[in-house]
């Protein structure tokens, strides 16, 4: 490999870049230095905190599962078919990534709420109510997080050499067998990365959840909601929960390092 000549950055650029790094690092340091390390055990076993941890796990995994069930077929269609309006569909699907989550929450309420566009029929015909339920929290998280799964998996499918599938077909494998035995293993890294991103985003979801699902300990109060409420009365508990989320973020970052920071 040829060594590239390293150029020295202009001093002003270096200073601004250093400021950017400081800007990102200082809040983390701020959080860590206020952490009540000795009471962390007590803070984490507090019932509010424990319920929030459990609920966050359930909801974020539920949202990720939903992303697999609904997102994988959509990613496949977006990557492999020439469906008219494909670009519009993709834009719509990715909208929640750029939409403020609070707006997502309002939209979900107006769609799936008790008087919502769809929600009124869910309630009248099926007796299903989503707001103020754990299902509502899962739905809110999936709405915000699923696009991450779709975009990553679609990219994985696109970069896949189609000759593998052609070869499987010539050997007599049917469509679904090919998908299951050839395509899925080959895009496994994308699936893992997409699921990790989706899970991390779902875990951190706040705005859509509190608006659509409400806030009740053990039912809909996930970790970010508990942090928001606890901050008003129990700073230690809020910091303890924040540390958990920070640790999770670090783990996700480290496990995806090859994808994001190729050496």
């Amino acid at each position, binding site marked *: 490999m040829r060594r590239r000549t390293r150029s020295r950055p202009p001093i002003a650029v270096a200073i601004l870049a250093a400021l950017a790094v400081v800007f990102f690092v200082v809040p983390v340091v701020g959080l860590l230095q206020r952490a009540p390390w000795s009471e962390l055990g007590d803070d984490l076993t507090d019932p509010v905190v424990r319920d929030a941890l459990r609920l966050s796990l359930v909801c974020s995994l539920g949202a990720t599962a939903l992303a697999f069930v609904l997102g994988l077929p959509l990613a496949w269609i977006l990557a492999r078919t020439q469906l008219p309006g494909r670009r519009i569909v993709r834009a719509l699907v990715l909208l929640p990534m750029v939409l403020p989550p609070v707006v997502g929450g309002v939209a979900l*309420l107006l769609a799936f*709420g008790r*008087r919502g566009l769809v929600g009124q029929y869910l309630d009248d015909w099926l007796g299903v109510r989503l*707001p103020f339920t754990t299902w509502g929290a899962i739905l809110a998280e999936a709405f915000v997080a699923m696009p991450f799964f779709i975009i990553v998996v679609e990219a994985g499918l696109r970069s896949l050499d189609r000759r593998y599938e052609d070869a499987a077909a010539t050997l007599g494998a049917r469509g679904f067998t090919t998908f299951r035995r050839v395509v899925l293993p080959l895009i496994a890294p994308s699936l893992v990365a997409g699921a990790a991103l989706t899970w991390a985003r779902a875990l951190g979801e706040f705005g859509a959840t509190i608006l659509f699902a*409400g806030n*009740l300990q053990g039912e809909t109060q996930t970790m970010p909601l508990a942090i928001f409420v606890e901050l*008003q009365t129990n700073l230690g508990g809020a910091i303890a929960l924040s540390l958990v989320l920070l640790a999770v973020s670090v783990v996700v970052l480290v496990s995806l390092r090859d994808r994001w920071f190729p050496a």
Partner: protein
Amino acid sequence: MRRTFVVIAAFAAVVLGAAPPARATGKKPSGGITVFAAASLTDSFNAIAKQFEKRYPDVSVKFDFDSSSNLASQIQQGAPADVFASADEANLQKVVDSDDVTATPVVFAKNRLEIAVDKGNPKKIRGLADLDQSGLVVVLCADAVPCGKYATEAFANAGVSVRPASKEENAKATLSKVSLGEADASVVYVTDVKATKGDVTGVKIPDRQNVVATYPIAAVKDTQNSAAAEAWVQFVQSKAAQSTLRKLGFLPP
């Protein structure tokens, strides 16, 4: 380190001309202030600000409306508030105890609770005792928030135990769940129900069960504009502001 900071801060204050209290110099209040106020004060303070800015044209007032408990935490963390108006005495005491407010708080209004139900009261709710029916979706304010604390007291007075579907972050958020139709009932302030101008219906809570909410106000110690902050604290006690508060359903202090 700390001393250097103090010296720099003092120097900055002199250079930037941070105004000493107006009364000392006899200057008229000017500039901007940020008032942190309980969410239940949203409509009344917005109306009072118009009166205030007519009286003090050089002052512009900005608001941060949220639950008093959240605002108190933010002030303790150094949020740039000039005045704090709380929906209960406990949360103002919290910032007095942490030395973020040194002035003596003044009670400027009182409020009572009411049950907010869907327009026309289709579920025929007549009192707190009707709120424990199964299948009825009741939302309350979070426990830390004054309206949540007051509601808990009222339910205790009535001897009713309710399992809410959600505990919302402030009075206005709680009420919005009823006006959106997601909840059948909530317990909020009389003034909140009145402010919806008929979007929701209020069901009275009798005095023996009801709770009186007390609203104290005080300037924050670190205010950069104590003249205007003090003027606001005085103004909400004035006849003009008090009549606005009365009109919107608040009780006299």
